[in-house]
């Protein structure tokens, strides 16, 4: 009998072990030095005794994240079962660490990896670490919305044909905006070519539990998936899951994770993963049904205001928008003459409403089970008011276009190469050695090793003027940039 058939999803082994640990009233002569909070009364007052009392170190009854054999192992088996994975790893370094572990598990120095350019910075960071070479697939851009979409099947097939030596295909499932590629077909293409398929599911936890959702990476047969439990899954910030399929070697992936992961894994984070997994199994279906209903309602109401376009499943085109995450509430704002980032700022400054992000043409409001209809009414009404009070003629607004990057050097070579700092405005034609991105969403405009062009500089300048928060370069003002000598 396999272990799968005996799992009991009503259990939460780490949570239970911590409850027991609390009752045993163990005297701590180990780290952490705050000793269940007694050594730091201000922190205890702020976070609460319940919380600091379980901020403890690995020990026999609580297992060890670096080499799980008891309660953490059980929690991982339960998570694997819940997500339909061959194995699941609890991660405490954010989904960034899950993404990096996917890349480092499959790519080594000089290996090629096929990926869309609209990946999260953590993917390219992983390439800096391991020295793999990116082969970018141009994600189609929706002209009206100005957003990068999924990868088209033909484009992936072309990249595979042109780079048969690549080791992996990397897919966003979904993108920040909720756009999904044809993951099942891409997995099959990758496998037929002897490559791994890796999925960034930072925004896809709910695909595993909700009904009527796009296909999840594990169901599509992908080899690895990085799942941000702390986004739609409800666990604490910085907790994450790394899922693997049957083709991966559990021991090898564990070794890769241990290269960079802390040896003092936080039990606050791990217990939050354990409890959230149980909650998703028990209540996920109803919860996400409600979230979809709220998102659909908000879309209807926002579209009834006029000027705004809250987009949804009508965008599905069978290829670059193979599917769409119905819980995402993205709104195109350019037709009211305002950049997304301007609407984002107005919502916060004028109406005390904080949304997830605004870019050049769109805003994204993140909906979850924590939302109630009355707050949605506020959001919709505030958008109606912004239109009434601030609407402009939108003719001067820039549309966000995909700028095909010219990769001159691998991210690792460029990052470590001899470089000098020059004014950004004079850098056209140079090869960049660092990242430039708007955060959020944290998708690089420039990555190390790419040629800087005037189009890119114009885009950066425009984003700055509109109030986007730019990050990446050493120079915090983003007036100077490091280029290769």
């Amino acid at each position, binding site marked *: 009998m396999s272990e799968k058939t005996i799992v009991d999803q009503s259990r939460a082994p780490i949570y239970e072990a911590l409850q027991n640990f609390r009752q045993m009233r163990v005297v701590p002569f180990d780290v952490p030095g705050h000793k269940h909070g007694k050594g730091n009364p201000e922190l205890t007052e702020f976070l609460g005794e319940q919380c600091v009392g379980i901020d403890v170190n690995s020990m026999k009854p609580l297992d060890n994240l670096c080499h799980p054999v008891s309660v953490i192992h059980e929690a991982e088996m339960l998570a694997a079962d819940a997500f339909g994975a061959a194995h699941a790893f609890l991660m405490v370094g954010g989904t960034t660490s899950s993404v990096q572990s996917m890349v480092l598990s499959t790519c080594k120095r000089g290996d090629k990896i096929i990926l869309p350019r609209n990946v999260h910075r953590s993917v390219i960071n992983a390439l800096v670490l391991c020295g793999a070479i990116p082969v970018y697939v141009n994600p189609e851009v929706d002209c009206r919305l100005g957003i990068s979409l999924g990868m088209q099947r033909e484009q992936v097939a072309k990249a595979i044909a042109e780079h048969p030596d690549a080791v992996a295909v990397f897919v966003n499932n979904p993108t920040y905006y909720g756009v999904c590629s044809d993951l099942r077909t891409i997995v099959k293409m990758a496998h037929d070519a002897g490559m791994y398929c890796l999925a960034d599911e930072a925004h896809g936890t709910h695909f595993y539990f909700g009904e009527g959702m796009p296909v999840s990476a594990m169901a599509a047969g992908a080899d690895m998936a990085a799942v941000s439990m702390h986004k739609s899954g409800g666990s604490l910030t910085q907790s994450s899951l790394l899922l693997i399929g049957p083709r991966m070697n559990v021991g090898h992936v564990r070794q890769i994770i241990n290269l960079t992961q802390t040896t003092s894994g936080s039990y606050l984070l791990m217990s939050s993963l354990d409890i959230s997994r149980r909650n998703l199994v028990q209540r996920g279906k109803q919860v996400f049904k409600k979230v979809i209903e709220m998102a659909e309602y908000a879309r209807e*109401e926002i579209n009834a*205001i006029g000027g705004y376009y809250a987009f949804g499943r009508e965008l599905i085109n069978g290829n670059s928008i193979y599917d769409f995450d119905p819980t995402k509430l993205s709104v195109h704002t350019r037709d009211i003459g305002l950049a997304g980032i301007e609407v984002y700022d107005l919502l916060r400054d*004028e*109406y*005390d409403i904080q949304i997830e992000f605004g870019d050049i043409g769109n805003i994204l409001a993140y909906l979850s089970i924590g939302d109630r*209809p*009355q*707050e949605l*009414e*506020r959001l*919709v*009404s*505030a958008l*109606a*008011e912004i239109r*009434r*009070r601030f609407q402009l003629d939108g003719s001067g607004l820039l549309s966000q276009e995909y700028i095909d990057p010219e990769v001159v050097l691998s991210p690792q070579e460029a990052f470590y190469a001899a470089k000098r700092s020059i004014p950004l405005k004079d850098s056209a034609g140079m090869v960049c050695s660092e990242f430039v991105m708007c955060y959020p969403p944290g998708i690089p405009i420039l990555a190390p090793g790419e040629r800087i062009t005037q189009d890119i500089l114009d885009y950066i300048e425009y984003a700055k003027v509109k109030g986007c928060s730019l990050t990446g370069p050493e120079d915090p003002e983003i007036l100077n940039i490091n280029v290769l000598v």
Partner: protein
Amino acid sequence: MDLWFSEFHAPDVKHSIRVNRHLYSGKSEFQQIDIFETPEFGKVLTLDGNVMLTERDEFIYDEMITHVPMSVHPKVRDVLVIGAGDGGVVKELARYESIERIDLVEMDPQVIEACRTYLPENASRLDDSRVHITYDNALRFIRRCSNCYDLIIVDSNDPFGPSEGYFTKEFYGICFNALKEDGIMVNQQGSPFYKHDAEAMQRSHKRIVSTFPISRVYQAHIPTYAAGYWLFGFASKKYHPVDDFDAKKWKNLHLRTRYYTTKLHIGSFYLPAYLEEMLEEVEQENCCK
């Protein structure tokens, strides 16, 4: 038997009313609804443990939130009332023959049902043929209106529960948009006395000032509300609450009132110094912006 209803007016201040009987207790989708019978205040309606009205002092609130704008605006035909499921405001409004339509938007049908059963006098005019009741979120309802109303009365619970949305800038904005070009919005503005209430009052005043060209605050003494001292906001596109006040015309209507008088109308806009200071503080922040 020694049975008391208590409500915190501030973290360290409690107001208690002796209770004879607990007449009704229900939990709706939005809030906890209770009706008590008390020796001093008669029947008392509470929502989430906050006193909404008592039979003994409801006349003060309902008269002041109604007759002040009604005696300033020369011709009120279309009125929107938000909240007010107890029917008290509608009862006062229904006395004006000039009003042609009263739209009442209440989010919680259970409040109206409970009041119809246990506070029938208060709710007596909800069946007036001019009254149209909609059960909906008010933001959703008003968002669809433009240039519709002469008067909007916002009779909500305090800003710390399900009514929070009725104290926001987006709410005042859509009300502005729903009013005709000479429309008036009156809202319950809380109490200026205890710190928590005072801060909320300042926040909402600031938002109204930034939305309407004319925005004044007036006061009344309401024994069962926090500090016994309550404020109303008078926000208007055209009419000033004192300069455009037509006492003679209102007197000619011969409406008998127990709190409101035409002299008190003017007096209620004369505020104590500490309150003037609090209001000026946020008004200045606004004009410097």
